[in-house]
């Protein structure tokens, strides 16, 4: 196999994986704190991409009329903050309406509620932008850099920088701030945290706020990187992101980042598997790209067989 190609795919994988990781953080935070698979999270991301497009449309910006220099940075910051804020508010509203009434319900009731919210958001997206693929204005200048034979673009750097800043920021917040400590306390034992004077409902709302804000940020960089979106995007990406969260060990922030990058890399590497008919039987029918989803899940299953709590998840001894 061509080593350059491998490295090239790795670059692609890491960039995509960074976006997965940002979305996965939302899943893992929510799961860590209320043990709910928030199926609506991927759709919040999708709504985020639409918000970004709308913001750009409001300024009448297309790929050709994009500003340069500081006004570009200002515009991107505006889109980033707008998307993050609206998504965050959306996340909090969803928590308030669909999950909080079910706080003490059986485990699967909020899951079904989450699925309901996911369906609602998908149709909102469909009503908003239609069923076709919506193109995202490519306003960030595309400059291609080379390290040896491996190429990467300026957008890739932007994606990695934004993702890294947000992840480090989140990690710092959870580790060192008062709110972060309260979040960890609620995740560990909700009742005990409440007894210690933590406002549990507020902390859960904040968790949703932050998780959804990260999805909003992921939405912008996804749009800049891939240039298109669709109302079903949230579902597909949400599935991968959730898988990433589980792969890294659900509830574990670093695990989610690791899982996201890993999934992105696996997905990119799968594309290298050749078509069985072309190369005389070696490989898979229709090539590896058609199978990437299956390969991701096979890897996931294999990893979970040997590490049942994910890569970085703690092997908690069972309580009797």
């Amino acid at each position: 196999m061509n080593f350059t190609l491998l490295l090239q795919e790795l670059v692609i994988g890491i960039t995509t994986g960074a976006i997965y990781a940002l979305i996965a953080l939302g899943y893992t935070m929510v799961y860590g704190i209320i043990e709910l698979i928030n199926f609506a999270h991927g759709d919040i991301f999708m709504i985020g991409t639409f918000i970004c497009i709308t913001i750009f449309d409001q300024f009448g910006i297309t790929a050709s009329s994009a500003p340069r220099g500081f006004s570009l940075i200002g515009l991107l910051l505006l889109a980033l903050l707008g998307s993050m804020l609206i998504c965050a508010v959306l996340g909090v509203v969803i928590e308030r309406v669909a999950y909080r009434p079910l706080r003490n319900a059986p485990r699967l009731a909020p899951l079904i509620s989450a699925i309901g919210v996911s369906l609602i958001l998908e149709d909102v997206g469909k009503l908003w932008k239609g069923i076709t693929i919506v193109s995202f204005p490519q306003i960030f200048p595309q400059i291609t850099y080379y390290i040896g034979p491996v190429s990467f673009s300026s957008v890739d750097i932007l994606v990695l920088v934004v993702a890294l800043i947000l992840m480090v920021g989140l990690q710092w917040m959870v580790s060192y701030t008062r709110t972060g400590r309260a979040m960890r306390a609620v995740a560990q034992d909700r009742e005990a945290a409440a007894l210690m004077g933590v406002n549990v409902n507020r902390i859960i709302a904040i968790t949703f706020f932050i998780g959804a804000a990260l999805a909003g940020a992921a939405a912008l960089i996804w749009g800049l990187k891939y240039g298109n979106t669709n109302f079903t995007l949230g579902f597909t990406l949400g599935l991968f992101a959730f898988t990433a969260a589980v792969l890294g060990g659900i509830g574990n922030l670093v695990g989610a980042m690791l899982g996201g990058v890993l999934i992105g890399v696996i997905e990119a590497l799968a594309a290298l598997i050749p078509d069985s008919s072309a190369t005389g039987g070696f490989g898979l029918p229709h090539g590896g790209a058609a199978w990437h989803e299956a390969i991701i899940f096979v890897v996931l299953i294999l990893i979970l067989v040997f590490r049942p709590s994910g890569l970085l998840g703690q092997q908690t001894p069972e309580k009797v």
Partner: protein
Amino acid sequence: MPTASMLLPTRDSRALLIKWIVGLLVPVMVFTFVWSGEAIINNVLLGLINPGSTALQGPVLIEAAIFIVVFYATVIALTGYLVAADSGRRRTIDLWIDIVVFTLVPLFLVINFGLVVGAALCAIIWPAYFFVRRRVRQARHYTPPPPLKNLEVSDAEQRAILMSRATTAGFWFAFAFAVVWLIVDLIYFFVGQLPTVLLIWVVIRTILLPIAGYFLGRLGGAVALRRTLAAKSNGSKSDGNVATNGDGRRVSKKRQLESLSTTRAREEAKDLVPNDLPLRSTGAQRFYLILIVAFVLFYPVLDPFLFGSGTAGRLAGYGDAGYYVILALGLNIVVGFAGLLDLGYVAFFAIGSYAWGIIGSTQLTNVLGQAPVNPHILSALFWPMLIVGALIAAFWGVLLGAPTLRLRGDYLAIVTLGFGEIVPIVFLELDKYSNGPNGIVGVQSPSFPGVDWSVITPVPYYYLILALIAFTIFANVRLRDSRLGRAWIAIREDEIAAASSGVNLVNTKLFAFGAGAFFSGIAGAYHAAKLGGVSPDNFSFGDSVIFLAMVVIGGIGSIPGVIVGALAVYAINQLLLAQLDSLATDPSNPLYAVHNAIVHFIPGFTFDNIRNLIFGIILVVIMIFRPEGLIPSARRRREFHAIEEDHEIEVGALDVVPGAPGFETEVRVE
């Protein structure tokens, strides 16, 4: 024979009789006169008197006749049962409101919107009603009225009183019904809509009904009394020697109760007579079961009367609803009984579908590399393939279960989800076997001598799916009550405790996956045969989610609940929401105005665009109103609404339980 003095109600039972006779008579009259009950009866009679005069002939006529007899007889006997079984701790007005919500509202909805859609609307209305009722009662500090009369049913004299009450109820119910019917028929006669020949029937019926009511009421009373405990004096002295006094059955029931755990005993105690919640007692459920079985069994005959033309299309639709029921019941084994969250259940459905799809079509030629020797016997292979396909699915279920054994909670869910994603991709990409994205077409329908299985005659499919559902329900009930089923429930509640008590976790979990997959394999084979093809689009994660929604909405672990949940979700998703656009074209429909108003703001708006939106809202609303599901299993019900009023009533019922001294005190501590 009845004498006048025997049948005259005493003063203290008069209120009770009025409560139940009015309560039951109104829905029965709505069915008979507002809907098509009378049309069926008159057609049956005309067919009997004058063969060939109506649409009903031969076996169809007999089926309709049997249904009518069974239906009315059951309702009259039910009246007798309910009057005997009622302890009077529900106010008449509460009861009537309940009956309106649970029988009249569904009847009118079904009459107006069709069977499945009507039922689906009920699935939305009922949780809301429960929610509102609970809130209202909490707000008003509701306390149930005291028992009507402290009946010691163990006393022979009191038993006789109960029996006579039931008899009286049956008689007066039938009498009232006969009188109303007579009046209605006379009006019809004078208007000229009733054929003169039927006047003989009117006379016979008016005489016959009260007499039948007398005996059916006795029957209902007898059913109620069979569920009483033994006499107190009897019970305390005959401990140990069961069969001596000929009361063996009842004594053993009491001893069973004593040996049961408190919570289980509370469930059992609900079936004592008199009962605080007679409508929900298992005795009454037997009657409902008879009604439902009769209705479902004879439905193809009744349909033209109940809903007019278009029977074939409706029956075909119900055939589809049927395999969702099987799928939901299968998933219920994994999720409901064993508590293993499965997000990839659609995989086994796909395996079952492709099993018959490949064997029962020309695809077999591609797979084998040569044409099958005897292609025309292929369709007869459907019957063995039903089982083989299910076994293949079960095999894969066990295979999937194996890597998940060490996982718990949502790690398990994601692995099942992964499997649910992998399997359809495999079928999509391995086009040598599955014909890839085009799917398999021309799959054989089943064959059976003397039965026409073509698509335009849905009746054989209706009975096939009915038989499959019956088998599935039977197997589910037996599994649940078996040693294996108890092991499932044990690991659901607490894995470590179960393992410590000697439950083999590996085998038990694998059996759960295998059994769940088995039923989806059956559903898959049926699906392929009925559709005549297999398409890879039918097996997405979204479908797995829908199956899960059916189980959770119905009530996790509860077999009747899951059936209702499957029908409700199917009806809401596939029938009701799909119909909105065509309903909105009718100017007399309120949706017409709604549609016009929205189109004003959003050009090109159709309800189809917001189908998932509405469905999502319905899911959220149902979950918020009734998180434990529409019909929760007894075990689950106890876990919720701990402060609810029903709970207090149940404790009241326990006062009736005689026996072990520690028993009562144990219950009162709460």
